[in-house]
């Protein structure tokens, strides 16, 4: 599903150059659950952003669903993104002015789905994430765990093939964290590919495979199955 070769990302500021990704190569197959680990600043988020088509690489190749997309324009990337990829962030990133229902509905709106169909899908996923009773609340009226469940709901509502999660449990206590990990595992079992950045060995154990990075390079790859 994803194949990157010699991927590079370099941040340039006035006087320093930071190589965030240094000729990184690996492959992720459809249906896999991959964890990415490494010390702070090693390039995990950078990698995830590129995989999620939020950012472009400075070099190398990125093939997504057999398409070379390393140099696609922003609007083309947006097109691919909204049909294929869901995101979960450490800091939930819900829109404060919208209710739970409306937040989850958002990706479907950008897919130009009919209102009745949207309602059905959103309610279905809210039930699955057990936040249906909070559908008319605003994000600030929810606990962290609830907010993250809403964020997961939003990520999966359009049935993406790939979910990218950047420290999804980082802001949660362990029981809420476990719940979210269980949700991701369930999704993976239903066929969704998942790539997750985490600092927690505990969480990483939910995955099939761990990619360890250091200074923008892969240093180790362990398979858990």
């Amino acid at each position, binding site marked *: 599903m994803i194949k990157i070769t010699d991927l590079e990302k370099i941040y340039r500021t006035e006087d320093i150059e930071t190589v965030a990704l240094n000729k990184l190569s690996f492959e992720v197959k459809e249906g896999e659950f991959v964890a990415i680990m490494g010390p702070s600043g090693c390039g995990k988020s950078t990698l995830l952003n590129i995989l999620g088509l939020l950012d472009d690489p400075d070099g190398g190749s990125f093939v997504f669903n057999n398409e070379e997309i390393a140099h696609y324009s*922003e609007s083309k990337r947006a097109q691919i993104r909204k049909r294929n990829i869901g995101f979960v962030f450490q800091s939930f990133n819900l829109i404060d*002015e919208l209710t739970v229902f409306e937040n989850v509905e958002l990706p479907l709106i950008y897919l130009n789905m009919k209102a009745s169909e949207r309602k059905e899908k959103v309610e279905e996923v809210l039930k699955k994430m057990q936040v249906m009773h909070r559908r008319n609340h605003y994000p600030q009226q929810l606990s962290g765990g609830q907010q993250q469940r809403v964020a997961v709901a939003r990520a999966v509502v359009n049935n993406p093939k790939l979910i990218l999660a950047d420290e999804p449990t980082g802001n949660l206590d362990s029981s809420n964290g476990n719940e979210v990990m269980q949700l991701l595992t369930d999704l993976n079992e239903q066929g969704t590919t998942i790539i997750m950045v985490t600092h927690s060995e505990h969480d990483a154990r939910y995955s099939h495979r761990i990619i360890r990075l250091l200074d923008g390079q892969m240093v180790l790859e362990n398979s858990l199955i």
Partner: protein
Amino acid sequence: MLKNYFKIAVRNLIRHKVFSTINILGLAIGMASAMLILLWIQNEVSYDQFHEKKDRIYNAWNRASFSGELQCWGTTPKVLARTMEKDFPEVEQATRVNWPSSDLFSVGDKRLTVSGNIVDSNFLQIFTFPLIKGDPKSVLHDMHSIVLTETLAEKLFGNEDPMGKIIRLDNEDNFTVTGILKDLPNNTRFKFEYLLPWSYLRSAGGDDTNWGNNSTSTYVLLKPNASLSSINDKMKVLKPRYDKEESKWEMFLYPISRWRLYSSFENGIEDNNGRIQFVRLFGIIAAFILLIACINFMNLSTARSEKRAKEVGIRKVVGAQKSSLIGQFIGESILMAFLAAVIAVVIVVLILPAFNQLIGEKVTVAYGDLNVWLAVFGFIIITGLLAGSYPAFFLSSFQPVAVLKGTFRKGNALVTPRKVLVVLQFTFAIVLIICTMIVKQQIDFAKDRQTGYNKNNLVYHFLTGDIGKNFELIRTELKSSGIATSITKTSSPLTESWSDGWGQEWEGKDPNDKTDFFRYSQEGGLGVTAGLQFVNGRDFDLKQFPTDSTAMIINETALKVMKFKDPIGKIVKDNGVDWHIVGVIKDFILTSPYEPTRPMLITGAKSEWFNLMLIKLNNQHSTGDNLKKAEAIFKKYNPEYPFEYKFVDEEYAKKFEAENRIGVLAGVFAGLTIFISCLGLFGLATYMAENRIKEIGVRKVLGASVSGITALLSKDFLKLVVISFVLAAPVAWWAMDNWLQDYSYRVQIQWWVFVLAGMLSILIAVITVSYQAIKAATANPVKSLRSE
């Protein structure tokens, strides 16, 4: 999708009440000003556009050379209309309109002075002034017929049917009402309340076939498809054909569409100096005020960008295209523009009467007209697009990665355009402040100018009805009863020139001299009545010097032109009379207080041209008492006519109306621009204070004083105002220097005006910004530090 945008927009409005209010209010005020100006422009442009045959109606004009310069004017010989109908197959009809006149209407005991026109009987077939009663083809056929407007008919006859009723005019002739006109709209050059047929003028001996008498307006209706240029070619040579003396005198047809706005000529061609100039100027001002309001909007919207950045990032992550985000933000600003427009319409409705009074027009809103609402709708869209474009592109270009990671900071890229916008606003505001001050100075300067006569307690009354006949009786009684101290019969009011001309002869005159002199006549006593100052000789006194009927008084400027060493006794030939000079007076202002006084000749009783009596009231009694008693005397000797006096000082004050209007308008617009700009500044200051709250907290903990922090926060904004001033000063200087060129009697532009305007704007900016700055500076640092 739209519903979702709408929801977000409304929730944002409600959540950020202060900013929504500032934003919408600023936009509403800007819109209201622009709407008012547009209404006025619409009114100007619509003048005489309602005539059904407007595309074929023309006004005949003259173009002839005087002292080397081509002059154009719109009054023509009375024979022209019939001649054109006869000579030009292209002409369908021609109609004449005589000078408007004022007549005394008597119906039973009712007496009214009414103004109207004498017109050819086909007038109502050319122009579209609909009749409520009567047939436009025949209403003016009978020479004793009269057509009234609805309002006048009601004034004269109340609820009775006016048709067929008799009205007595000027105690001479009876007329039968044959038609009732709908009241004239405001947007027409005609101002009559009644129409009389030309046949009446002819029977009264007022018609002539003299090609040299250019005293009538001639309107021509061309046949459909007639070629204007070919008819104008023929018009060029028409007058010489009938008037052998004027071989170079041209005539031309001038279309209805240009009457109101373009009819200003210089050396024979339109010089673009007509009212169109004001229309353009105010159009620009409207655009600017709207622009400033939009700038405000952009400024406040981008200032809030940090708060919206996260939303943008998330939307992009879940699949929003840049274009849909642009659509969202523009939609939001159109929503705001809509709310602002609602408020603006309310403001316009409330303020329209005052605005009309200010500009001296009757601008109205046609609420029933679909086009008006379409225009408002268009206005909303345009304003929304204008105001929303920059924020939309700005906000939608945020990179989601940066925003969501929290590394997003406003950065310099954001500050610069915002500063540019503030500078633009203040530049415009400062220009207007300076202009207002200089216009005011110029008006005061002209007002302070010595008139050269004493206008206190001075009134005049036209010689209506029997006043001329009973003049001596009235004078004696006014004086003996202590109402007036001095009374003089004159040719025209002291504030107007009714006659001027060149070609006088005097001893030693340079044969090339073509100086134009004002002519004025009096029978004697003007010196005392008006308080003129004699520098040489004396006033007329027919009792003591019977030959004073051909005496002349000249002003100092005339003396300079005539170059007499000893003027007394010198002869000046004018209008076929040998006038002998008996006195020289100091110059006084007869016409414009902005122009140097022109040479003036005051002639004695022989001129036989007297139209009014000038009365110096006795200041021993109150003016009210004097006038009440005077009315009784006038009623006694002139019973049929109302007592209608005018104060000379009030008439003089009217000379400043146009400039006063410019001054007040400039002031109002300056105030509005400042207000809108300050709203914007206030909004920005609030955001600045919010954004720097942590910095302020840290500084305070480290020992900074409240005043130090206030200064720190205000400094940035003041810099902008100073830059604006530097930009505004030359622009204002240039504009005002240009404007003052129109006045030969004018103020010098003074440097302190600029300093004052600069300080004023800085003061206003300081007050606006410091409220937020002080609030931020005095906040408890413990609280603000915890806000992180």
